[in-house]
């Protein structure tokens, strides 16, 4: 190592100081981030490009082609009604992305303001907000889904709403915890000492410094939401047939599992890959934001 450099005194404000020394701690790409992100992108590509490159209609019934195995004309085979599995898979992924993005957007939109408010306002407000959310958290997501579906009817929208409501308390908790930690930082005191108001401190100083854990949580939730959504569709609480949906495909295919395993394997693997992609992505993001704690 260079003994010379450490032995020298470097006055900070020397007249000839050029560009600042690069002290940015390098954030390395980690395997989880690369694999998770890459897989997520690939699935998104399938969802977007699949319908363009594949000429089959996802809902076109063709009894003569029922339960054909994977072949040149049907890449992933056909289901019990002769529908092309690949195009249904691609459409199912599109729905999965909608559900994932929709629930997380819903959760963030409601959870972030609530969490920030709980952390920034006094302890009375904090307690009111968090106790109400605790009650919501005590409901299993599936029961909430039944509730929402009985009120507004089954469908993708109801699914997004149900899962969104179920995860809002979790997002609010993560936001609150992160914001509480940020509020103990010196720069928050510094902002107070300059006469910044509560709102300014919450929005301009606390929020931007607290979003790291939130992004991690959001990414993991995309995967979890799709998993849960598929489960609800499977038991008939989510998307209605004949709309292509991964959970529905799994449900209708299970009768033919022994003779034509691909009708189950394809949607099951598809759900697994989706959940895996976003869990890995969340993991990778966590390491990215906090390289020390991940070691």
């Amino acid at each position, binding site marked *: 190592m260079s003994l010379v450099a450490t032995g020298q*005194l470097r*006055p*900070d*404000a*020397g*007249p*000839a*100081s*050029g*560009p*600042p*020394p*690069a*002290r*940015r*701690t390098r954030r390395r790409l980690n395997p989880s981030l690369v694999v998770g992100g890459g897989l997520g992108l690939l699935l998104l590509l399938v969802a977007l490009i699949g319908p363009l490159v594949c000429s089959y209609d996802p809902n076109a019934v063709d009894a003569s082609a029922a339960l054909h195995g994977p072949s040149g004309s049907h890449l992933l085979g056909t289901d019990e009604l002769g529908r092309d599995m690949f195009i249904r898979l691609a459409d199912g992924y599109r729905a999965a992305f909608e559900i994932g993005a929709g629930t997380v957007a819903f959760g963030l939109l409601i959870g972030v303001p609530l969490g920030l408010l709980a952390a920034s306002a006094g302890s009375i407000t904090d307690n009111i907000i968090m106790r109400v959310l605790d009650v919501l958290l005590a409901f299993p997501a599936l029961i909430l889904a039944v509730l929402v579906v009985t009120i507004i009817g089954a469908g993708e929208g109801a699914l997004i709403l149900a899962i969104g409501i179920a995860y809002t308390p979790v997002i609010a908790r993560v936001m609150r915890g992160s914001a509480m930690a940020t509020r103990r*930082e*010196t*720069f928050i*005191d*510094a*902002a*107070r*000492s*300059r*006469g*910044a*108001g509560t709102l300014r401190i919450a929005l*301009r*100083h606390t929020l*931007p*410094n607290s979003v790291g854990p939130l992004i991690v949580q959001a990414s993991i939730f995309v995967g979890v939401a799709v998993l849960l959504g598929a489960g609800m569709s499977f038991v008939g609480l989510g998307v209605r047939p004949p709309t292509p949906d991964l959970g529905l495909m799994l449900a209708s295919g299970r009768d033919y599992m022994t003779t034509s395993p691909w009708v189950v394997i394809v949607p099951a693997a598809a759900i697994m890959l989706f959940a895996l992609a976003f869990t890995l992505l969340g993991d990778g993001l966590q390491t990215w934001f906090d390289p020390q704690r991940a070691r």
Partner: protein
Amino acid sequence: MSPLLDVNGVTISYGDVEVVHPLSFSVDRGEVLGIVGESGSGKTSVGLGMIGLLPRNGRATGEVMFEGRNLLAMSTGELRRIRRRSISVIMQNPAKALDPCYTVGAQFVEILRLREPMSRRAARAEAEQRLRQVGIAAPAHRLKAYPHELSGGMAQRVMVALCLATNPSLLVADEPTSALDVTIQAQILELLKSVIADLSGAVAIITHDFGIVAQLCTKVCVMNAGRIVEAGPVADVFAAPQHEYTRHLLSLLPGHLHHDDQTRPARDEAESPI
């Protein structure tokens, strides 16, 4: 005329524990007060508590008259206005006192526009001039830097510049050099000296270091266990310390090495092997 800052019978408590017992002191324009004491003596609680910057569980009672008004009795809105215009605080750890999400320039813009309405362009120009004032070369370049791109000494220079940007009539510095390494400490001390000389207001420096008091302050309060044990002009206190505790602290200054023979390790065990 009453002094700019007149602290009268102030106590500070966290929960049920009173950590600072009723104490009084004052600082006027042109004066530099050093509040000295060891860790836990309550010096930081006093320094921050008198301007209403205690943590949520802290409570200050008594009277802090600033420009003729009691800081501890006014509404948060009024207090906020006074902080924006008249009071600046130099925090202990400069690297942590700058918001990591914003560039140096953005932090200047915020602070200047909190004080009075002005355009961003004007604020940036002002910021550049302030950075130059604290001896930062290529200020336009530094304005675009994020806090983590600054070295510790550079960050503290930026902090000082930020605190001066509003032309405060009261400058509070909480351990301004403690978090810096020794070579940088000397530079920041020099900077503070020149800055204080230019300042028309009052200064309160919270420190454990009598060396800093000797270099910067005109008067001093020595604190121990939440009380002021000795107060007076720096020259008097140094020449003839009245209190046992003050004598003890002064004996710990370099140059009084004869006194700490017993406490010094036999060998330089702490020295790094490299």
